[in-house]
């Protein structure tokens, strides 16, 4: 579903991604771990072209993102993204946040997008918050709205960049629960996270990144209990 070939990304002279190769299969849940500054966010953001690619290829659902024929806006409708800082639109209430893109991009009627939005709110357990503004919600609720907003475009895959890192510990569970549900429904997911519990329980595969390369990957249980690389060992020792 996603094919990455020899992906390089430079900011000026600073090479942040130094040749990444990976395949992500349909319905797979891939967790990306690694130290701060290793390029996890940059990698994720290259998958939907929030960052321009310096060299290499990213092919999403058969479309090469660096191909000038590719309509990047259309590709992005297939890839939902959830940010660490939620990034809800503060001037719109919850249901309007969810309805905006379906109406403006997919040209779905107001009525239909509202119905779809309400269904998604029910799914993330926030039907009663439809008319509230983001500032009136807890962090966990905001992040669940952000997930619903991304799902409203009916994407084929979802990218999560540390979705629970900005949350108070007691709010992490409710967001992970929604993500777990999504995974069970067969959503293709790439999740940058430090939640090892989630990675073990839900993840099909773990990628360990360091200094712009994928150092090690494999089954979560294997990587966590029996890491092959010294760098992975060192990292896991620090965070566990």
């Amino acid at each position, binding site marked *: 579903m996603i094919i990455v070939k020899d992906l390089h990304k430079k900011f000026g002279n600073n090479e942040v991604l130094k040749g990444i190769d990976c395949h992500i299969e349909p319905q797979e849940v891939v967790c990306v771990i690694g130290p701060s500054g290793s390029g996890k966010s940059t990698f994720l953001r290259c998958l939907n072209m929030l960052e321009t690619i310096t060299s290499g290829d990213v092919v999403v659902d058969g479309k090469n993102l660096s191909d000038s024929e590719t309509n990047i806006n259309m590709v992005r409708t297939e*890839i*939902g993204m959830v*940010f660490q800082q939620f*990034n809800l639109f503060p001037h719109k209430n919850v249901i309007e946040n969810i309805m905006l893109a379906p109406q403006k*991009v997919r040209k779905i009627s107001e009525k239909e997008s509202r119905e779809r939005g309400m269904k998604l709110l029910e799914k993330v357990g926030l039907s009663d918050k439809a008319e509230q503004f983001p500032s009136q919600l807890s962090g966990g609720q905001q992040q669940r709205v952000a997930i619903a*907003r*991304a799902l409203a475009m009916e994407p084929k895959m979802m990218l999560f960049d540390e979705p629970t890192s900005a949350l108070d510990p007691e709010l992490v569970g409710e967001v992970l629960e929604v993500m777990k549900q999504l995974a069970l429904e067969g959503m293709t997911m790439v999740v940058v996270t430090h939640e090892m519990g989630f990675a073990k329980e839900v993840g099909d595969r773990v990628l360990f990144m360091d200094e712009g390369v994928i150092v090690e990957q494999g089954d979560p249980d294997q990587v966590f209990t029996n890491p092959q690389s010294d760098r992975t060992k060192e990292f896991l020792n620090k965070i566990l």
Partner: protein
Amino acid sequence: MEGRFDWVGVIDFLPQLGTGLYYTLLISVVGLIIGFILGGIFGFGRIAKNKVIYGLSSLYVEIIRGTPVLVQAIWIFFALPLITNYNMDSVMAGIIVIALNSGAYIAEIVRGSVQSIAKGQMEAGRSLGLSHGQAMRYIVWPQAFKRMIPPLGNQFIISIKDTSLLSVILVPELMFQGRLVASNYFNAVEIYTMVAVFYLAITLSLSFILRIVERRLDIK
């Protein structure tokens, strides 16, 4: 002190001051409407990736910000006609001065407000498949517009007061009319006090309206 100041007699000169008030309001309103449009255009020009658009917008802003309004007024009314061979009437020149001047400051207000909206807002919009233009229109601009209101109100008040400088290019606005009356009838205290009160009435009304707008839009 009895009888030294004739406050009641000022009423006789109200028609002249009224004319002045009319031109002050005319130039302020028309000048600021044009200035708002200029500010919108050049404000976005200052954010543009295109180097030519950015360069021209910056040039305009820097020239206006770097020179006094008085010099701009005199240059447009006395110097420009010598270059273009076209004599402008003073009211027209006054409107141009206020429009060009406020336009540059409003451009900076627009730029600052748009840039103050966190990058994550644009990114969230783009990640949902909105085009740059759509994300600007539905996400960034509405938030930026709210933030623009207080500094915009401030600029409106400054520009209204700046119209008083147009008396030097013979615009028959409030200050010009006041000076005319005062120098003919030697009642400077009464007349200039009235002139000041008129300006205050305009700016206080504007402040009042702005406060209502801010409350309506719930701007902290």
